[in-house]
């Protein structure tokens, strides 16, 4: 199988047969292997370990403290996600948690999340908050715990194997808004300070640097009626448009959606706690409650992202928990 993977990478493409194999391996998960909007590679087959390759895992919306239908034990499903990560043949270089770590941003909920993540083999975890992590105290507890080494109100960037990672925060100081007339949009927002920082942060980078941006609320407008978008995301993306490959990873909506726009691919991730309805398919975006217990894990999940240097394919695999 690994021969086949090498062959794919030589041609920087994929053949239907390999693609189907890859689908089969991921089981109930979805496989995307995209580079700038084009299917390029599927390099996550077991045994695909090779030089210049690394992967990282995105987990999202663990909502520690939520205890209602359809999931009365979100700590357990979060732990199962970590167990799955630990069982990956190729261990991720690090984890990224894209927010809503907790449900009510209480210290004990943060403690529980920390405890679960301590069992991850990957010791490095990067965090950005969701609105549930900051709403009760404007992010005070969150920043005390996760703010070390970050900029401003917790935003951050780092480089790994030639890839530039940027963690943005779009859940602080949300202003009321109906999207019409007076008032704001009611969407996520980055704010001027963070936008200025972002512009400076990427200024010195070569345009060939692959960029991975992660933030909680989607950085593209999915469904404004439910607040599923970020008011000033276009401004942020304008600073990134010169780069050849931009991958945006979001959480918040507890389901997988994707969009390709030029060199930017947008992805939202599943939650490890509970699913939410597809945009506009329910009166409100609350949890989908009527998920049978034996189906719950098929709608929860995690995401593995693999990067291979030289030809820059970024392979994204979303795996369900069961």
């Amino acid at each position: 199988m690994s021969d086949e993977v090498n062959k794919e990478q030589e041609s920087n493409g994929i053949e239907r047969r390999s693609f189907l194999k890859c689908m089969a391996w991921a089981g109930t998960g979805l496989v995307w292997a995209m580079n700038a909007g084009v299917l390029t590679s599927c390099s996550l087959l077991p045994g695909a370990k090779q030089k210049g390759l690394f992967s990282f895992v995105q987990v999202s919306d663990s909502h520690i403290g939520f205890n209602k239908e359809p999931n009365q034990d979100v700590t357990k499903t979060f732990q199962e996600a970590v167990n799955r990560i630990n069982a990956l043949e190729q261990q991720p270089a690090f984890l990224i948690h894209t927010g809503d770590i907790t449900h009510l941003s209480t210290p004990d909920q943060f403690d529980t999340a920390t405890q679960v993540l301590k069992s991850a083999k990957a010791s490095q975890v990067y965090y950005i908050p969701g609105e549930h992590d900051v709403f009760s105290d404007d992010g005070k507890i969150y920043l005390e715990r996760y703010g070390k080494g970050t900029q401003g109100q917790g935003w951050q960037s780092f480089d790994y194997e030639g890839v530039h990672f940027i963690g943005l925060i779009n859940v602080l100081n949300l202003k009321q808004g109906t999207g019409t007339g007076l008032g704001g949009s009611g969407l996520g927002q980055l704010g001027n300070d963070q936008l200025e920082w972002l512009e400076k942060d990427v200024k010195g980078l070569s345009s060939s640097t692959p960029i991975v941006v992660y933030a909680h609320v989607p950085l593209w407008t999915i469904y404004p009626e439910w607040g599923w978008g970020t008011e000033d995301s276009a401004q942020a993306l304008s600073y990134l448009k010169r780069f050849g490959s931009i991958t945006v990873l979001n959480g918040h909506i507890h389901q997988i959606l994707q969009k390709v726009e030029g060199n930017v691919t947008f992805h939202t991730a599943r939650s490890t706690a509970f699913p939410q309805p597809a945009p506009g398919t329910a009166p409100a975006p609350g949890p989908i409650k009527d998920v049978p217990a034996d189906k719950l894990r098929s709608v929860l999940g995690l995401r593995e992202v693999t990067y291979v240097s030289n030809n820059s394919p970024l392979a994204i695999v979303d795996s369900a928990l069961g």
Partner: protein
Amino acid sequence: MINHLKRKLLLITTMSVLSLFLTACGQIGADSSGSSETESTGAPNASPNSSTEMSKMQMPAKPSPAVGKNQSTSSSPNQVVVENFSFQPGTLTVKAGTSVTWVNHDDIPHTVNENDKRFKSGTLDTDGQFSYKFTSPGTYSYFCSLHPRMTGQIIVK
């Protein structure tokens, strides 16, 4: 083969994006017809049996056909129910000196934050309540800091 697959994938992506838009458009229509702001005029000390004023106050409790599932389960005066990510009634009019109570009937936490920070509830988890006494006349607009599309107002006469 490769080009064929690429084309196919792009087509699939385009189609899913398109269907997303279609869903969104459909919902916009449904939402605007379904949005209802029920104004409730109430004297704080109105007895439950009293007259026309009371029937107005009970309006938000009656599920309007346009609202569908969005039923309010409370008919208490001077109470705002948080349900299905909305404040019901969206506008409540009270006399100065009245305490208004918000109660959260959703499975998701919400908050009540006055736009000019004159009051804020903190976390209201399921069945959580928050009361605020309005002493000065005026219009108090508020929203949920977790879901800022959720807005409401209290008019104090």
